[in-house]
């Protein structure tokens, strides 16, 4: 045994597959395996008999205690950090201390089994560090981490994952309950499917899903996952969970407001457009592109007004926009007439507002326009009606004054004359007053007759206009007036061709012609025979019959406004009654026509009668 001890033991120890050393009770090295010697770089040196202190430097307090315990029969384990000179590397060694018994079971020393654990040790440390970092990242980014181990069927959630699910930190998740957090329907179906696929085929996933938290809140998350492999076998899944609810909510809100805005813009009964700085349309609503004659906005976008309107309209619009972009002052509710390329014109009520970028620079124009053509048309019609009304009203008031004035004039005469008659004693004077009363009565009757004529003209609106061959009426008239014409040596020169017709009410036409012709003779120059020239011409929707004479003429500057007034006479002539022209004017107006007078005192007068050619009366 001793032999063996002395001869074989060292050799056996030398060959031990592990780094092993035997120290005696005084901690002096007795044997060491080659591996142990190599571990501490003692290969080839005779280190037997040297103490551990000598060999390894200071032995820390913990190991000293273990060694002491071991010498009393208790094994122990410790780690030892060693600085290696080479490369300033650290080496961790694990020491197993086992009591060394002799054949009599006496502890004679300690068997030390040393293992280099540097690799394991650093890996473990790194892992711890990584785990810490991961937690940090998870907390900073609010991305939850989770891991599922298939073998243990266990699911791990980090704190953030728990926070997202709104469960307490003590919550223990299960795969099934985790899946049930997802909203029933699309979200839950999707998560079940992707988890299954990941486990079966190793397909990673990333899905935007909705889950309902423990507290019942619905939220949007991005759930991602990928399989964990070990020896080419899927043993679990690891993944992340990200709360994107705020993001989705604001996204949805933006989309909703966008849709709302679009709906409003497209359905506004108003043309809306946005133009860039070159006045090219970059946004148009339905009303605008339909107004321009298209069924889609693409046909309009990128084009300027020159593509749709005539040159002048487009240039005006461009100038307007340049001004707005320069002055930065909006143009509000401007009435413009826009003429399109095909010539159709539209009245638009347009507003243009400068479109500013966030930095305050000008980006273009926002415009609104409303088609007010129909409104303008109605307005014009209304104005015409108002004008007609005002005219009628003026005529009525005028007529009322005429009536009142004339009747009052006669009645006051009656009243004064009767007053005289009652008090008069003288028979001759009485007779004179009675004669005057008769005259006043005749005057009153005549006035009433005249007023009746005027009322008739203004009220016989149902009198139909008919085409009348004008020369036929003139021939009749010349026959009727032949005596009067002859007595006054008057000549009528008729230059009207036989095919000329006027649309007129026959009795009115006769009266008008008689009036003007007799007037020309009444107001002839005393020393000159009257010559009356009749002519005809066309002017738009009017046929003009002119009656020119070589008579006294009228000072139109003085009397122009009174020429056709009732009971206005301008010549000191006893047979001037001041009613003829008033009636002719009323008759012409009743036929929708007018009279225009040219005259020069001492030369003569021309009356141009404008007969309306349209059937409407």
């Amino acid at each position, binding site marked *: 045994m001793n032999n063996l001890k002395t001869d074989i033991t060292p050799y056996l120890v030398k060959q031990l597959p592990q780094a092993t050393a035997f120290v005696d009770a005084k901690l002096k090295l007795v044997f060491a395996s080659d591996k142990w010697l190599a571990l501490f770089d003692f290969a080839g040196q005779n280190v037997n008999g040297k103490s551990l202190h000598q060999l390894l430097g200071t032995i820390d307090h913990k190991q000293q205690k273990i060694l002491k315990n071991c010498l009393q029969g208790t094994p122990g384990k410790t780690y030892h950090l060693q600085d290696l000179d080479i490369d300033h590397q650290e080496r961790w060694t694990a020491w197993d201390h086992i009591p060394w018994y002799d054949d009599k079971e006496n502890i004679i020393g300690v068997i030390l089994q040393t293992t280099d654990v540097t690799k394991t040790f650093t890996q473990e440390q790194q892992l711890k560090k990584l785990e810490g970092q991961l937690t940090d990242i998870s907390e900073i980014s609010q991305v939850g981490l989770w891991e599922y181990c298939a073998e243990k069927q266990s699911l791990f959630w980090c704190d953030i994952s728990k926070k997202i699910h709104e469960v307490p930190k003590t919550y223990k998740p299960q795969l099934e309950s985790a899946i049930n957090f997802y909203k029933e329907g699309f979200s839950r179906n999707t998560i079940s499917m992707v988890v299954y696929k990941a486990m079966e085929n190793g397909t990673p996933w990333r899905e935007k899903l909705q889950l309902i938290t423990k507290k019942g809140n619905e939220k949007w998350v991005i759930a991602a996952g990928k399989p964990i492999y070990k020896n080419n076998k899927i043993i679990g899944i690891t993944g992340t969970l990200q709360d994107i609810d705020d993001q989705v909510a604001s996204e949805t809100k933006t989309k909703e407001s966008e849709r709302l805005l679009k709906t409003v813009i497209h359905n506004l009964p108003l043309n809306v457009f946005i133009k860039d700085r070159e006045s090219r349309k970059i946004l148009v609503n339905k009303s605008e592109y339909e107004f321009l004659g298209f069924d889609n906005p693409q046909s309009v976008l990128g084009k300027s007004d020159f593509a749709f309107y005539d040159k002048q309209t487009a240039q005006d619009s461009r100038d307007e926009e340049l001004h707005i972009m320069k002055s930065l002052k909006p143009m509000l509710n401007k009435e413009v007439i826009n003429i399109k390329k095909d010539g159709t014109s539209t009245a638009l009520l347009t507003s243009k507002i400068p479109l500013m970028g966030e930095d305050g620079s000008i980006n273009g124009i926002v415009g609104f326009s409303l088609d007010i053509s129909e409104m303008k048309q109605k307005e014009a019609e209304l104005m015409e009606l108002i004008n007609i009304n005002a005219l009628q009203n003026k005529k009525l008031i005028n007529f009322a004054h005429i009536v009142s004035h004339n009747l009052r004039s006669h009645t*006051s005469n009656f009243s004064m004359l009767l007053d005289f008659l009652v008090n008069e004693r003288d028979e001759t004077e009485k007779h004179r007053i009675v004669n005057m009363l008769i005259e006043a009565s005749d005057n009153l009757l005549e006035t009433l007759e005249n007023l009746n004529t005027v009322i008739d003209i203004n009220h016989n609106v149902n009198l139909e206009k008919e085409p009348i061959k004008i020369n036929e009426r003139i021939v009749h008239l010349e026959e009727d007036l032949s005596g009067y014409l002859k007595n006054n040596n008057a000549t009528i020169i008729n230059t009207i061709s036989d095919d000329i017709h006027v649309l007129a009410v026959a009795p009115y036409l006769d009266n008008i012609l008689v009036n003007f012709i007799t007037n020309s003779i009444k107001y002839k120059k005393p020393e000159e025979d009257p010559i009356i020239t009749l002519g005809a011409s066309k002017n738009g929707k009017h046929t003009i019959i002119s009656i020119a004479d070589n008579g006294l003429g009228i000072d139109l500057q003085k009397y122009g406004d009174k020429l056709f007034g009732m009971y206005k006479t301008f010549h000191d002539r006893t047979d001037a009654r001041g009613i003829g022209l008033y009636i002719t004017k009323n008759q012409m107006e009743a036929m929708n026509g007018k009279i225009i007078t040219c005259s020069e005192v001492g030369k003569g007068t021309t009356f141009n009668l404008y007969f309306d050619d349209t059937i409407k009366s």
Partner: protein
Amino acid sequence: MRKNIDAICIIDDDPITIFCIKKLLKFVVNCPDISTHLNGKIAIDYINSLVERKEAFPKVIFLDINMPVMDGWQFLEEFIALPIKEIIKINIITSSIDPLDIEKFEQFKRRTKHNIHFSHKPIGREEIEEIINRK
């Protein structure tokens, strides 16, 4: 007591009115020279000739508004421009109730020193008396 007035002028195109005014005047004044004129033109020509010849001037004028050739307003326009030193009584006598005529009357009243008065027909003896005696 009838008042003595040298000359009176009546401007009216209606013979009946002239007759009536003349008849009424006889009750209240002694006037050897009552001239009548059928429109404003004749009247202004007459008055112009009086001014030129520096003859006695009518102190009282009766004036109608609606007359041919030159109406009452046109007459007044020319009359107030004449260089007459005395204040003349001008009485507009009309059957018109047109508010425009009243307005025109007020305008003339403001523009002239002459004593202008406006009355509606018919007028009676008391009114003529009042017109003649008015200061």
